């Protein structure tokens, strides 16, 4: 494939469990990947995309993502993001990015209190960013969710800002695009980006939707956005 010049670095904390799925997904798309252990104080200088993979970093102790915030690698991540580097946080990665303040809001316990693991349809809200540019606004994608703390919370002022800056990436919906909220998230929000649109976070797992035979390959169109700048 023609994307082998794209380098994806994937963070691994104790308790991360989606790093190899993420690696497989990006390699399937032709990217070069490297897994970065959290003790590393630097990230590879040739990194084009940094992924904070899903899982249960530090066993979700205290709060999901709270302890990972203080891992040695996180200083390098903050600097990489501040310098405009592209960062994608999936599931626990999203929680980590909100904990460190690279993304607005926070993820609370699901309203129903249950761990939810199933395929869910999502609506594309804003595609004017590198992540979703291969999709159209209003498109429906089928992506697995698997989380206990996916209930996105942001206060009213913050929410207004998300709308104004088109920072809402995806919302949970039914297959016709009508809001369908599995976990209590404010306005059914499933993923957001920062104002500068270089840091992205979402609870659903696009890296688990890479093969039609396994239920969906809608993740391909999402992750591909990062590989063809």
């Amino acid at each position, binding site marked *: 494939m023609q994307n082998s010049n794209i380098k994806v670095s994937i963070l691994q904390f104790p308790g991360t469990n989606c790093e190899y799925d993420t690696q497989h997904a990006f390699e399937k798309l032709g990217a070069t990947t490297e897994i970065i252990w959290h003790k590393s104080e630097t990230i590879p200088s040739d990194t084009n995309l940094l992924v904070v993979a899903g899982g249960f970093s530090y066993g979700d102790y205290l709060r999901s993502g709270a302890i990972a915030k*203080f891992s040695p690698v996180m200083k390098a991540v903050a600097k990489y993001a501040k310098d405009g580097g592209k960062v994608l946080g999936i599931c626990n990665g999203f929680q980590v990015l909100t904990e460190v303040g690279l993304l607005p809001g926070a993820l*609370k316990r699901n*309203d129903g209190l249950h761990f939810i693991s199933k395929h869910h349809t999502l609506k594309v809200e804003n595609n004017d960013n590198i992540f979703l540019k291969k999709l159209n606004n209003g498109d429906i994608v089928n992506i697995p969710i698997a989380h206990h703390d996916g*209930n996105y*919370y942001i206060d009213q002022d913050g929410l207004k800002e998300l709308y104004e800056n088109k920072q809402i990436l995806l919302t949970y919906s039914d297959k016709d695009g009508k809001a369908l909220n599995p976990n*209590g998230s404010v306005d059914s929000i499933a993923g957001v980006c920062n104002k500068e649109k270089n840091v992205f976070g979402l609870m659903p797992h696009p890296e688990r939707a890479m093969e039609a035979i396994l239920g969906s390959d809608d993740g391909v169109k999402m992750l591909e956005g990062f590989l063809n700048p």
Partner: protein
Amino acid sequence: MKAIVNVSLKAGVLDSQGKAVHHALDSLHFNGVNDVRVGKQIVLQLEETDKEKAMSDVTKMCEELLANTVIEDYVIELI
């Protein structure tokens, strides 16, 4: 000195665990409960002996780690 930190969801942030517990109390016929909030308690044994210094240290700990101030409030008690 000992610091007891109580962390709970802010007023106005829906506490689904509190709601579930409230519901369960109702079904056990404990009907006089108006509201339930579930939080967590963190107990710290401190070397510090100066109360003011301890309070400022623990406040910092809360702001940086023990609470996520986007959704949570904290109350510190020193004994």
